[in-house]
């Protein structure tokens, strides 16, 4: 029997869509199912052309506002993938629908901020548009939580992102952040939005996470690359959505009626990084200094520069560090360098000599000496124990 010809209609320029497609691939690899997959060469979907498709089934991104109409009269099985809706009537009728559970994504971000000890919350969304109803659903989920828990929650949608309006948009964002009571935890509707927040915090001089703790959604490696302060982010169950969609289509091709299936997939994790590791601090000097060390700690800074940035004398700053952290400024800088080095050793393929320089050690020998003193092992031994095998 010839393999079924299946169209995957996704705009696979985002990590989420790529993970959905990866999940479909995992399902096919785990079974003996052979599908002849059709995707546009540039991984962009063109819904309007689908009526010319001579195939057996479709898995499509229903966050695309054109999808329901374009696929309505197609006489082959269709499985929809998209965001969940709080209003059941918003789902397309008669099509199995695999959803990322927007309410659970926001709930996980919110619960995480609560666990950090925060009591004030805000949501940074995006202005409504037909292609991003999921963003409105996340905003709705946030409003439902703050209503249910009787707390004040601020929502800011900002402006649509455009090259021309960027400067103005950042200024408005900084103004909004300045007016918020602090400390506060902000849930960003995506990592792309969270990155803008981090940028605005740096430009506006707000300490992350001491004044503003941030959680994004998507766990997008690109957003991580572009931020100096590592971003905490909720991990969607996108691969599982792909596996589920492939399974339903597989069943439908065997004649099983799945038209009423609606499966909501909850998040599968949260990548906790510095941007949300809020610890209540009393000294504003320590807060500002920590913020500075997190940004520039690996660039060879010394206590003097930190004190200059904070605007107090070395002695005053050391006094505050001793009282609040029971450590000297130098120790905190060194700890930041060591943490960064350990992370690179465990999670990258970067050679040790480069890691030493990147983390602000004057030489590889010096990094060896510090490791021996602090961890009682060499960086090489640490690498052998912790570096994840790349396959």
């Amino acid at each position, binding site marked *: 029997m010839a393999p079924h010809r299946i169209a995957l209609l996704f705009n696979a320029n985002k990590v989420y869509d790529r993970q959905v497609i990866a999940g479909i691939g995992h399902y096919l690899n*785990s079974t003996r199912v052979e599908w002849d997959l059709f995707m546009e060469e540039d991984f962009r979907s063109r819904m309007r052309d689908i009526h010319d498709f001579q195939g057996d089934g479709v898995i499509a991104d229903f966050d695309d506002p054109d999808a329901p109409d374009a696929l309505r009269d197609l006489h082959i099985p269709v499985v929809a993938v998209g965001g969940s809706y709080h209003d059941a009537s918003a789902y397309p009728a008669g099509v199995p629908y695999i959803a990322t559970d927007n309410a659970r994504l926001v709930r996980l971000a919110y619960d995480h901020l609560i666990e950090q000890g925060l009591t004030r919350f805000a949501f940074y969304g995006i202005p409504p548009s037909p292609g991003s109803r999921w963003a409105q659903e996340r905003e709705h989920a946030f409003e439902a939580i703050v209503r249910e828990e009787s707390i004040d929650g601020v929502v800011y949608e900002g402006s649509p992102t455009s090259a021309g309006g960027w400067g103005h948009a950042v200024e408005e964002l900084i103004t909004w952040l300045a007016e918020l009571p602090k400390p506060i935890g902000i849930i960003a509707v995506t990592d792309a939005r969270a990155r803008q927040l981090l940028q605005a915090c740096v430009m506006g001089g707000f300490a992350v996470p001491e004044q503003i703790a941030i959680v994004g959604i998507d766990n997008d490696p690109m957003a991580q690359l572009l931020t100096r302060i590592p971003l905490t982010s909720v991990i969607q169950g996108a691969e599982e959505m792909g596996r589920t969609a492939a399974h339903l289509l597989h069943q439908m091709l065997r004649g099983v009626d799945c038209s009423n299936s609606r499966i909501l997939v909850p998040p599968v994790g949260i990548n906790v990084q510095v941007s949300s590791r809020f610890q209540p601090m009393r000294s504003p000097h320590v807060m500002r200094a920590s913020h500075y060390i997190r940004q520039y700690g690996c660039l060879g800074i010394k206590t003097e520069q930190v004190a200059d940035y904070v605007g107090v004398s070395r002695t005053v700053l050391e006094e505050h560090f001793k009282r609040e952290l029971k450590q000297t400024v130098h120790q905190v800088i060194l700890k930041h360098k060591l943490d960064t080095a350990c992370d690179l050793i465990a999670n990258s393929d970067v050679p040790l000599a480069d890691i030493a320089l990147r983390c602000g050690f004057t030489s590889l020998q010096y990094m060896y000496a510090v490791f021996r003193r602090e961890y009682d092992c060499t960086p090489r031994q640490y690498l052998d124990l912790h570096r994840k095998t790349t396959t």
Partner: protein
Amino acid sequence: MPVSNATAWGQLPDGRPLHRWTLRNARDAQIDITDLGGTLLSWQAPDRQGRVGDILLGHADAQQYLASTAYMGAIVGRWANRIRGGRFSVDGIDYRVDRNDGGNHLHGGHDGFHLQRWDVEPEGDALLLRLVSPEGDGGFPGEVRVTLRVQLEDDGSLDLRYEAESDAPTPLSLTAHPYFNLNDRRPDIRDHVIRIDADEFLAIDAGAIPVGRQHVAGTAFDFREPAPIGSRLHWPDPQLQLVGGFDHCYIPHARPSEAGRVVAVVSEPSSGRRLTVRTDRPGLQFYSGQKLAGQPGRHGDAYGPFAGFALEAQAFPDQVNGSEAEGAILRPGVIWRQHTRYTVDTD
């Protein structure tokens, strides 16, 4: 750390007193255990923030445990899981054991190990639990002597080492039956993400008796990559519909060994807690807790469906009536051993 002294914890219907002990480790974890059924009463474990919370379901008091139908936290024997029709034969002799589950035998019968008072004795950091199951217990042949060593280690591991001997050939399969919910702030485990390292599971009939091995590929049962429990419950699969969720025995693909292979890992995103299960048993029963509705909780409340899940290391259900029956028989002169470890840490 040394085990606490015994404290009074209710009594049996005949008036004999029951007791509770506390195991602690160096990292704020704490496990309470009772001599009634060797039951794990609670397991306090730190979350991602270091905040301690109870990750086991439990009843309020001894009376509720004695009346329970959930085998809540107990050590189960002589036969964990089911035996078809409560019948089997060993060396040509037919036996009939208690039928307490719709015509089938389940978890040792009416007065299984979970309702017995075990002899408990601290040994340094560990507790030794001993039980003598007399000839004819639940209908099973032979007198069986069981010793279970329970230890809470500093890495967050609950280590369970069983030894048993019998004076006549008898089927034997013991398991611990804790129900976990790694997020003590949400009484529902459907957001937990589970990985089970098994290529095959045992498909069942309407009485939950295995009818044959089935490959997990392309089914809701494929947890070789981690997946949320809740969304899998909605996959169209007759095996799920039979019992309203997961209540199936997996066959882990790594060979059983003393080294203790990992058979399952469950993570809970909100608390950051993670449970790793290691065992040398051939089977791993995964139960998603769909029938827990109405079971009394610790505070006068009642659990709902999917309030907890169980991962039970054991022999295959009804193994005594299949081609691998001999592997489930304990014979005189042989020491039966089992080693299972539940490790709870954070991401």
